[in-house]
């Protein structure tokens, strides 16, 4: 009997304490609706998480009015050797151009494929490994090709020389190619386009007495004539290029301090270089869009949206919807401000995520595959 009373007493005390705890919590906060992304489609290359993966699917993912993402259409696929890399661009929302490795042992062992309606057609070979075709606003398509040079001997290597290759920028015209720019050096990277002109990031060796260095420059190449003009020399660490208006945005190392990285804005008309923002220890990635710029945040990560695409970041909002890690902005939905970024977590696999300056976000990647973005399409078209 005494035990029974003790039990009831204990039960009553526990209920009372529970009630007090609920009261102390206060009223439940009103549920705030999460912001939703506006509808758009992303076209991706999907490769399974498998070191021996032998194909990549070209697939469309639709983000619908509820802000969720779902697989939409399979456009086709490309074959890959184990460890091979495939990248590409959209032709339209139902067709893509893909550069995929034929043989991973050759720097120019990739090929250009056109993928549409379940059919994959090989268009060109001798394409640079891991390069991405460039499609201009006028619809022209350009690729990077080349042939490897002779390997430096031991003395040249110790003096600082890398293998010098013959490099070309070729325009795809139906099933044939037309070389519009040719050079000899380390890299002719397709950085962007202005009307009638290609923006090329070129890296080539320099020779001084007894040693070799390298110089990087931004070059404008006339699409029709192939004539070229050097706009500016930059430190040879530049990457993540995007053109907005008449300016080229990219990130690069400081010219002197090897531990300092900048987002740069280069006026392609005047050659004026400005630092937009800077980071220590790790380089940011940047994307300039019509709505502003998106740039990797300092420290533990996230993406900074800035409404300004001039020479300084201001009015910024930072979001990290998948937590700490590196967010590399890749492409933006025209007219929406939505950016698709590749998220690299501290551990684990890459994730493709769409996010906007209002804080809405949706994960595009499944758990079992890696996605490489080819481009995005807004509700009113405008494949990029």
């Amino acid at each position, binding site marked *: 009997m005494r035990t029974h009373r003790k039990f009831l007493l204990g039960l009553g005390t526990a209920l009372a304490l529970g009630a007090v705890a609920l009261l102390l919590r206060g009223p439940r906060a009103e549920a705030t609706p999460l912001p939703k992304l506006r509808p758009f489609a992303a076209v991706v290359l999907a490769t399974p998480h498998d070191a021996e993966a032998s194909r990549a699917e070209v697939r469309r993912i639709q983000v619908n009015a509820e802000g969720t993402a779902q697989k939409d259409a399979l456009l086709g696929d490309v074959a890959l050797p184990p460890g091979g890399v495939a990248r590409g661009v959209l032709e339209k929302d139902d067709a893509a151009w893909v550069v995929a490795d034929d043989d991973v042992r050759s720097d120019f062992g990739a090929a250009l494929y056109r993928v549409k309606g379940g059919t994959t057609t090989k268009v060109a070979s001798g394409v640079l490994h891991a390069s991405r075709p460039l499609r201009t606003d006028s619809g022209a398509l350009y690729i990077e090709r080349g042939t490897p040079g002779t390997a430096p001997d*031991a003395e040249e290597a110790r003096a600082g020389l890398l293998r010098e290759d013959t490099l070309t920028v070729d325009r795809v015209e139906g099933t044939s190619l037309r070389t519009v720019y040719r050079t000899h050096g380390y890299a002719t990277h397709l950085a962007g386009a202005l009307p009638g002109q290609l923006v090329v990031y070129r890296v080539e060796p320099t020779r001084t007495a007894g040693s070799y260095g390298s110089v990087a420059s931004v070059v404008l190449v006339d699409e029709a004539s192939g004539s070229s003009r050097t706009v500016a020399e930059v430190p040879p660490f530049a990457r993540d290029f995007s053109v907005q208006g008449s300016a080229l945005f990219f990130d690069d190392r400081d010219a002197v301090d090897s531990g300092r990285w900048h987002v740069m804005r280069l006026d392609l008309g005047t050659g004026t270089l400005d630092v937009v923002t800077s980071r220590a220890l790790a380089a940011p990635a940047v994307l300039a869009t019509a709505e502003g710029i998106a740039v990797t945040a300092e420290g533990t990560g996230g993406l900074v949206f800035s409404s300004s695409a001039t020479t300084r970041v201001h009015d910024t909002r930072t979001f990290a919807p998948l937590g700490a890690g590196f967010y590399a902005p890749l492409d933006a939905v025209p007219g929406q401000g939505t950016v698709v970024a590749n998220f690299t977590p501290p551990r684990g*696999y890459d994730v493709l995520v769409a996010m906007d300056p209002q804080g809405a976000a949706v994960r595009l990647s499944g758990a079992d595959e890696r996605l490489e973005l080819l481009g995005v399409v807004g509700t009113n078209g405008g494949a990029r």
Partner: protein
Amino acid sequence: MRLAPPERRERLAPPERRERLATTAALVLGAWAISGAAHAYCPSYTPAQTAGGKNCDVEPALGKNPAVADWSAIFLKVSGGKASWGTEGPDIGTMGKGCGKPTPTTQVPARFPCHVLEAIAMQESGWRQFCVPDAPAASVGAKERTIVSFDCGYGIGQVTSGMRKGETATFDRARVASDPTYNLATGTRILRDKWAATRCVGDNDPGLVEDWYTAIWAYNGLAYSNNPNNPNLKAGRGPYNPKNGGAYAYQERVLGWMEFPPTAAHWPALAPAYPDRGEIGSAGSPPALSEPSCASPTSCAQKRTTHTSECRAVASDAGVEEDAGNVGPFSPDDDSGPGTRRTDDDPPPADDGGCGCGTSGSRAGTGFGVALGAVGVLLLRRIGRRRKPR
């Protein structure tokens, strides 16, 4: 064509739900990871098939590819250099040790960190000296024989030097095609030559995995494609995980293999340090580099220490199944791999249960989720071990 039914993906969930999803994903991925990978890539070009092109000069040899445990014994032998391999490999010169930072340069017998050899061989050939050809078309249907790439790369080390018509070799070319140990030793000799032809990394200690960074780059070719500042490589890339893929420099792939071995039977995971990419690029080929200390190829915000690496002694009954290991999606989270050189700033090593092997395992979280994941993966590993070895 349409995919039916469409796979829906939910909007980002609250943290607790994401944690549950992550645990589930870890289990699913763990299950996937232990299923083993099929090796489907096996070119085997003959001299006739490359005539007028690369002009390979040695016929592929028939043979049976060694099992993983047999390869481990071969790596143990070859990593010790000439004194260890004797007549089973070619002659090899001494190599420089020390770069005046502070060790003065001296010549020492060539020896190699085991992880460097194992990971290069995985990147080059998937540890294949022999396989059943699947390319070129004219070779399909032939019996298991030497893997020979279109560029006359032979065997596990994909030795190309001296293997083409008109080239002279100071080693036995037929044995490069037919003998796994000889092939690996020949590849190792080429790697030693790359060490000699490139500038110092750190204090140029051949015992440190990380000091081989530039020599590994050169093993593939001193080309700009392997410059970590090549803009075609993935932005903000972490250590290369072969199952994640993406555009990486050759030497980054090799270092990534060290951290993400195909199975635990291949080698214990080792999380190497990377050089600061800000130091690479102002010249053409890599300049003398500081001792690598970055936790990823693109960021030095987190640090790692350097590592030594010895090959594991091979048990006499080492009948290890190829799919016996667990390579989950998460990397070891510190430098607890073999031979880690710790500094006072390092966190204490994770408790590995006293095995001291520092092999892979998920350390991506704490508490119930990880415990559940571990139980699930262990259970699945047991299931996986019942499968027939490939």
